[in-house]
């Protein structure tokens, strides 16, 4: 089999701290692979290296059989790697529609066009509306992004990622800070997208992870201590000791469903 993404012995240090300590991982096309781990385990740092925001100290990132370790972020996005951020990263002064239309613009035609109103380009707006409808934000299209609720920000972040026409989604805690209802809505959305996309989901929310993931990897102190199906991970004693123990309530809650 050929993996969509191969992570080979990735290493990253911040001073004396090995934040990514020899991570190797394969993600198959169509798979939803979750990475869980306690705060400070190095999850965001891993995503940042995969998306090209951070350079690893050693190791390789191979995407569709090509070594992209030294490719910049924009280059990776153009090849179909999309990323959402743990801390919402949107253009706050732009409208919701403009945020998504700009992502469509990035992959359709040159942006060295100095005349003609971009806001009036039906091609960009129509394509953007499709993604806004998909995430349930269509009726907020003309609002300034700053004025959205936190949950809506997460939805917008999602729509932007989808608008880049991804073949691999890197999602860094998309559920972070969402309320119960918002989380349920996002979970719905993820369920829809799952199967049509290859997804690396970094998540703290155990309910979401065990409901969605095909496979789960557990990251602790920069190392992956276990990879397996949700059931295997739940049953893994080492994982229980290192991580799930402290999340007893949520984990058992998830086991119930």
């Amino acid at each position: 089999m050929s993996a969509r993404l191969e992570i080979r012995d990735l290493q990253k240090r911040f001073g004396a701290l090995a934040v990514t300590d020899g991570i190797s991982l394969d993600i198959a096309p169509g798979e939803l692979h979750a990475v869980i781990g306690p705060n400070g385990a190095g999850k965001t740092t891993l995503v940042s290296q995969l998306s090209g925001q951070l350079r690893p100290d050693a190791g390789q990132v191979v995407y569709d059989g090509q070594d992209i370790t030294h490719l910049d972020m924009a280059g990776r996005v153009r090849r179909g790697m999309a990323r959402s951020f743990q801390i919402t990263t949107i253009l706050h002064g732009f409208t919701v529609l403009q945020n998504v239309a700009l992502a469509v613009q990035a992959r359709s035609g040159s942006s060295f066009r100095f005349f003609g109103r971009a806001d009036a380009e039906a091609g960009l707006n129509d394509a953007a509306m499709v993604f806004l409808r998909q995430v349930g934000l269509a009726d907020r299209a003309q609002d300034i992004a700053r004025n959205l609720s936190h949950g809506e920000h997460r939805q917008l972040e999602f729509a932007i990622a989808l608008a880049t026409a991804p073949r691999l989604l890197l999602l860094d805690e998309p559920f972070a800070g969402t309320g119960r209802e918002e989380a349920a809505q996002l979970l719905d959305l993820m369920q829809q997208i799952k199967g049509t996309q290859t997804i690396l989901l970094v998540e703290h929310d155990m309910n979401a992870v065990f409901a969605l993931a095909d496979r789960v990897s557990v990251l602790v102190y920069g190392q992956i201590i276990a990879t397996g199906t949700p059931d295997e991970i739940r049953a893994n004693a080492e994982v229980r000791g290192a991580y799930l123990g402290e999340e007893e309530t949520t984990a058992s809650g998830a086991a119930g469903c």
Partner: protein
Amino acid sequence: MSAASSATEPTAPRVRLLSRTVAASAIFVLMALIPVVSHLSDDPFLTLAFTRILVFAIAALSLDLILGFGALVSFGHAAYVGFGAYAVGVLMRHGVTDIFVQLACAIGLSAVFAAITGAIALRTRGVYFIMITLAFGQMAYFFFTSLSAYGGDDGMSLQNRSTVLGSDVLESNLVLFYVTLGTLVGLYLMATAIVNSRFGRVLQGTREDALRMQAIGFRPFRYQLAAFMIAGCMASVAGVLLANQAEFVSPAYMSWHRSGELIVMVILGGVGTLLGGIVGAVVVLLLEEWLSIFTTHWRMGLGLLLILVVLFSPKGIGGIFERVFGPRK
């Protein structure tokens, strides 16, 4: 689900667009009446003085394009005004009097200078960007001060104004005024188009969040550099007109004071509104005239006004107008 209605154009920005167009038209029409006032009040100097104001309005407009829409605070923008002026002065000295040739040289030189210095300055952010553009601006300043063949420190007077395809129409102050006003209006329309274009959207997106732009597949650097070059070229057009207005070319046009003054104009008028830079230029230069009647410390008065405006209306004079005349929330 009213997806159809939400796909239509936004109403609020459209109102703003309309009021901007009205404001711009009003300002340009008022400016066009200056020669009439000048004639009626029998004060021919007024037209020439206002030509100078229009020239700086062009320079401020060009600065707002990068400062307001790209958050690129260039502290060396006056250098491009100087390039334009020297393109006229130096070419005149060698018998090339046609304004189109002079414009082409001014724009070419500015594009090259902006490309090289911009490529270096854009590797930095914030205060460092300000300092590096300041340093490059001063480099250009000192280069022309040491150019003794062309007047050095003292600058040089021009025997004549530029010719237009062999004609000397620009010798008339009235023609020069309207040519300058026409150029200002044309460049304002061009800048407005750029801001609303695909390119302008990328520039503003980068101002908001460069990381987000990279995360959707843009490489912001090239757009910022292109904007930096466009702004420099526009400012050099102002320089070509300034040399003709003053019939004099001097390195003083490029000093850091001038660059700072351009920033003051943009901030005072309203950052990121295009029209603001134009209004700011008018206000600053008129105040300069007026305050200098009362005191030699007129810069202090100007500084005070700037502080007041920034404190009470972060969006400048344009923001005050918007609050008074704009649509109610």
